[in-house]
């Protein structure tokens, strides 16, 4: 598959989003609710201590990543899992496809997983005649609508219940309703049939544990448990940095992640899957395949941007981001939106495609402040902007302006000349009926330094 390198049209996408009143309303309601819940949930714990510990554990993993991958592989194999290693998206798709086709699987149920979005797995399976149904309610809605998730935790955050009512009526042939309870029942009934018919389940993992070879899945709907226990075959796909050293670390993150995500002290369901079903056990897949995906993680780990790999996908940075709140996830045209998405997308997709995203922030710092694992998002974005400039992904006008700026800040004479020129520029620009030109501030008649004399 050739890599798409056309720059993401973030400004055009966001202009469209800003003109969509229903979308804006849905975003404000949802992100404000998430922010309120998170704030309440972290005020009842010593958050600064917790995040310091969380950051330390994640750094420990990144430091010794190759060893942890090895340790996890050993432990998981010992408990009956078959571990595969995929270097990139296409390799991962191939591995999953060959496992499924090897078992003659035509119907798959999926638990919510961002990494399978990252590698466009569903599309690939569809091409092979394998039906993969999303079973997280938000993901199900998004899949029915033929869209991609617009938020890493709440994929259908951009859709109102009226939208969903219309969608269900159209796609599932049920009477229109906008009552969430009714809609949930409709989805549950449709999904129940899919669960029972599925020959395999595909999941991601919120975490994996090197010590025990376990994988952990947090959900609020219980669908993750059904996906991983009902079908006899379970395929788990996740990237290597999801590993935690010890089971005790999982216990810690089981309390940390939901607080930062939805503001819950714990998620409603936490499935810890350690290997295949053993004789005498009532649940669990008979065959478990784990696809450990790199897809650029080793490269990022070895760069100055390593700390983005601490990310545990809680989405607190999305919810608190004033830009995300205005335009929603689809404007970013990438698997991962918001502040963590800006960094990760640039590193995964490359500067050529992703550089417009680097403008999509005021560097207000709200993201760095809420991050439960202390990813220095503002610093990483600023460093990526530096790289963007070095690589030449800037407009000629900006380059000239910055060259002039560089000269002016180093010379009081040129600086004063610049101030005088601004006066002329302002006189011209105020007649242009287009922002930002018509928003340039009016220079004072006399500068402060002259008035001071």
């Amino acid at each position, binding site marked *: 598959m050739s890599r798409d390198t056309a720059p993401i049209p973030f400004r055009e996408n966001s202009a469209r989003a800003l003109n969509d009143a229903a979308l804006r309303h849905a975003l404000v309601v949802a992100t404000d609710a998430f922010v309120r819940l998170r704030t309440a949930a972290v005020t009842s714990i010593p958050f600064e201590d917790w995040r310091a510990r969380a950051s330390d554990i994640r750094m420990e993993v990144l430091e010794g990543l190759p060893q942890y991958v090895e340790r996890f592989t050993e432990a998981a194999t010992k408990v009956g899992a078959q571990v595969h290693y995929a270097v990139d998206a296409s390799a991962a798709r191939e591995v999953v496809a060959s496992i499924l086709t090897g078992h003659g699987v035509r119907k798959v149920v999926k638990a919510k997983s961002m990494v399978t979005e990252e590698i466009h797995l569903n599309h690939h399976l569809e091409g092979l005649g394998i039906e993969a149904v999303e079973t997280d309610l938000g993901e199900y809605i998004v899949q029915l609508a033929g869209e991609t998730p617009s938020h890493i935790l709440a994929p259908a955050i951009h859709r109102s219940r009226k939208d969903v009512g219309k969608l269900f009526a159209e796609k599932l042939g049920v009477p229109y309703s906008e009552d969430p309870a009714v809609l949930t029942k409709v989805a549950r009934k449709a999904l129940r049939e899919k669960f029972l018919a599925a020959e395999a389940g595909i999941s991601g993992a919120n975490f994996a544990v090197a010590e025990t070879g376990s994988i952990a899945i947090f959900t609020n709907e219980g669908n993750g448990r059904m996906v991983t226990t009902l079908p006899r075959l379970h395929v788990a796909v996740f990237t290597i940095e999801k590993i935690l050293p010890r089971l005790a670390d999982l216990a810690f993150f089981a309390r940390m992640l939901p607080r930062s995500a939805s503001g819950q002290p714990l998620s409603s369901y936490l499935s810890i899957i350690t290997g295949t079903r053993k004789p005498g056990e009532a649940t669990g897949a008979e065959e478990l395949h784990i696809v450990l995906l790199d897809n650029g993680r080793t490269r990022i780990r070895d760069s100055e941007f390593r700390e983005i790999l601490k990310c545990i996908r809680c989405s607190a940075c999305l919810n608190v981001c*004033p830009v995300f709140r205005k335009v929603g996830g689809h404007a970013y045209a990438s698997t991962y939106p918001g502040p963590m998405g800006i960094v990760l997308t640039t590193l995964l997709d490359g500067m050529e495609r992703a550089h417009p995203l680097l403008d999509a922030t005021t560097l207000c710092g*709200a993201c760095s402040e809420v991050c439960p694992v202390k990813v220095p998002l503002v610093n990483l974005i600023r460093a990526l902007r530096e790289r*963007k400039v070095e690589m030449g992904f800037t407009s000629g006008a*900006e380059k000239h302006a910055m060259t002039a700026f560089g000269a002016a*800040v180093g010379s009081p004479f040129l600086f004063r000349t610049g101030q005088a020129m601004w006066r002329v520029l302002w006189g011209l620009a105020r007649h242009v009926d287009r*922002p930002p030109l018509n*928003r340039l501030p009016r220079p004072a008649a*006399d500068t402060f330094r002259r008035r001071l004399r």
Partner: protein
Amino acid sequence: MRVQLFGTCLVDTFFPETGEAVVRVLRHFGVDVVYPKGQTCCGKPADSAGYSRQARKAAEHFLSIFDGADPIIVPSGSCASMIRNHYPELCKNVPTLTERAERVALNTYEFSEFLVRHLKAHEAGLKGNGRLTYHASCQLTRELGVRTEPVMLLQSLAGSEFVELPQADRCCGFGGVFMGKLPEISMSMADEKAEMVISTGAGTLVGCDHGCLMNIADALTRRGSTVRVKHIAQVLAEAL
């Protein structure tokens, strides 16, 4: 006590009356204010946009003008943070500047921060009037950790009423280059901020950063609001 005033390029070019207010307030508290000649801009716009070479040039020039022997007062949270937090980073690989950048960083204060921590201006019994609300700008709040000082100053003004701005520390959408690159989002953010300001019923919005204030004033004007927008130095100078 003697201080060096870094006026900031925004105040110098667009808001000289704020600079004069800063001087008046500091002098009122017995501070000798020196305005070093030859100062330009802190380099923040270049630093934020990824032009580290130009930002370093600004730092180099700043450090040739300000030595850090006396406290450096900056009437902007964003510029103060540039000097305090980013200069040492920018200069860490320039041996001739490293030490000076560290020293200057340690002796740089945002205006309201200095007034409260060093001059106890909030205990001076100043008099104000009208209903005031306050926008907490991003770098001031999150990079410098100056959250309470401006509020303490405003609350101390006898005769005026302080009302809290809902979501006071949510970004107004200025963001320096952001305003130029994504003006539609910037304006939408500023509009929401303006709505919040109007909802407080305050007659005056106070802030510590003219970048944000300019942006919010623009949004207030667009909606025909009569709320005045003032730098905290102006409010305090009027209260002397």
